[in-house]
């Protein structure tokens, strides 16, 4: 008996079950996530329009969070493939804020630098950089920067479309900057400080 316990204590577990993970995700999610209420029914995975491209169904991902599989969960492409359609959210019998949990997981993955493909995180970051710089989104700048980096081969296919957008004045070539950009920057700076300490 004592031997067994000693053995258990000395042998490192194959995978560390990080039981704080579920609570951390829940805590970092906007509103009351209700993540701990999941009954693993699969309504989310069944509802998801882009499930085919996901590593794990949302349900599976939540099971992984529960099991404390931090690395695997944050590496999953599932949150990045989520299209925020909210079908799962309104159908979830336990009213889990699934889409918002996905946002949280993206943020945590970026923080931990755990993702397989940088396309999506880069896109989000580029978008946010522009918004932080101008106060408005800047599609032309975003598109050029993004496509050059991630889809250079797709550009020929895209050219007619891009041209169409430009010729129909549906894409501005120069960014618009809001008047209160200083104010916005101050707000965001403080927000980041608050985020870091909470």
């Amino acid at each position, binding site marked *: 008996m004592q031997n067994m316990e000693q053995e258990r204590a000395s042998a490192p577990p194959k995978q560390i079950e990080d039981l704080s993970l579920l609570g951390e995700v829940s805590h970092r999610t906007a509103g009351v996530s209700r993540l701990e209420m999941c009954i693993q029914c699969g309504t989310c995975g069944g509802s998801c329009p882009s499930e085919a491209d996901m590593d794990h169904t949302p349900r599976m991902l939540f099971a992984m969070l529960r099991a404390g599989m931090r690395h695997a969960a944050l590496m999953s492409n599932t*949150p990045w493939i989520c299209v925020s359609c909210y079908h799962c959210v309104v159908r979830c019998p336990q009213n889990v804020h699934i889409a918002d949990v996905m946002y949280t997981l993206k943020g945590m993955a970026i923080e931990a630098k755990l993702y397989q493909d940088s396309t999506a995180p880069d896109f989000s970051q580029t978008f*946010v950089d522009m918004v932080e710089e101008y106060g408005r989104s800047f599609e032309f700048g975003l598109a050029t920067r993004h496509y050059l980096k991630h889809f250079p081969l797709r550009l020929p296919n*895209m050219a007619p479309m891009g041209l169409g957008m430009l010729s129909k004045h549906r894409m501005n070539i120069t960014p618009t900057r*809001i008047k209160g950009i200083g104010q916005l920057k*101050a707000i965001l700076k403080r927000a980041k400080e608050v985020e870091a300490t909470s």
Partner: protein
Amino acid sequence: MSDSYILYPGCSMESSARAYYDSLKAIAGIIDLRLQEIDDWNCCGATEYLGIKLTPAYALISRNLALAAQQANGTRTVVAPCSACYLNLAKADYYMQEQPVLGQHVNEALAAGGLSYKPGSLDIRHLLDVLVYDIGLDTIKSKVVRPLTGLRVAPYLGCMVPRPDYEHRWSDYEYPVELDLLLNALGAEVIEFPLKTECCGGHMTQISPDTAFELIRRLISAADSHQADIMTTVCPMCQMNLDAYQSETNKKFNTSFRMPIVFFTQLMGLAFGLDAKDLGFGQELVSARNALAKIGIEHPAEAPAGTAKPKKDGSLPMPAPLPPRNMHVVGKDKVAK
């Protein structure tokens, strides 16, 4: 109808969705919809900022709420024509109430810009909601001078208008009827579009195009199989994805769809007798020319598809449809002002 609304246009309205803004401005006077734009509003962060950092994302959104509340002149309704903007504003307002600590953090940040916002002090509504429930279908109908008779329209709402619907403003999460009713009021032939709240792919066109193209294909193909002449949408992102990426989608799946995608305000303008040019027609990449020609020609209304009336063939009766959640509002009291 004298109240004015605070308008949060959102970035797309000034670029990719100019047709939406143009047509909205064109019809607003006709239906006495008074909009005052939030002064110096900023981007809502779309679906991107939320996935990076929580407090900054909500602070970004809330700067707009704070400005709107400041500017609110006896009114408390903020109208957003863009689905993502509408959802972000509504979401921030709702979550800051559900989780007060979020509201505190956001207000700490806003204070750095000399602003503050008390969650719950504004009503965040989508343009379609205001048109159907405040302006009212009767008013809209009364302004129709060129009914869209014979135009088969696929009503398409996408995701973020009917869902998650924090304040229960819509008749259903999956099959809301508001857009159908409005198009009916314009005289259009509205098809029962089963995918009306399915996803257009969102930002997947940028980060995982194959995922997006499949979703676009589903929508266009369903509208096409219902013989829609045109598809109408209430969201800049949906319009952009279905219109601008239609040809790439065709290429991928070896199809040849030519489904024009326009904003519902453009169709309203047409029915109100306005010039198509002033409504932003021509800005769409898949041309709506043929669809417009169809109204010009004035076809006699096609016989409606066979209804489910029980026949003498031994078939079993169907249950009556359930009145939608908010149907009472659609019906009378609120609409008939």
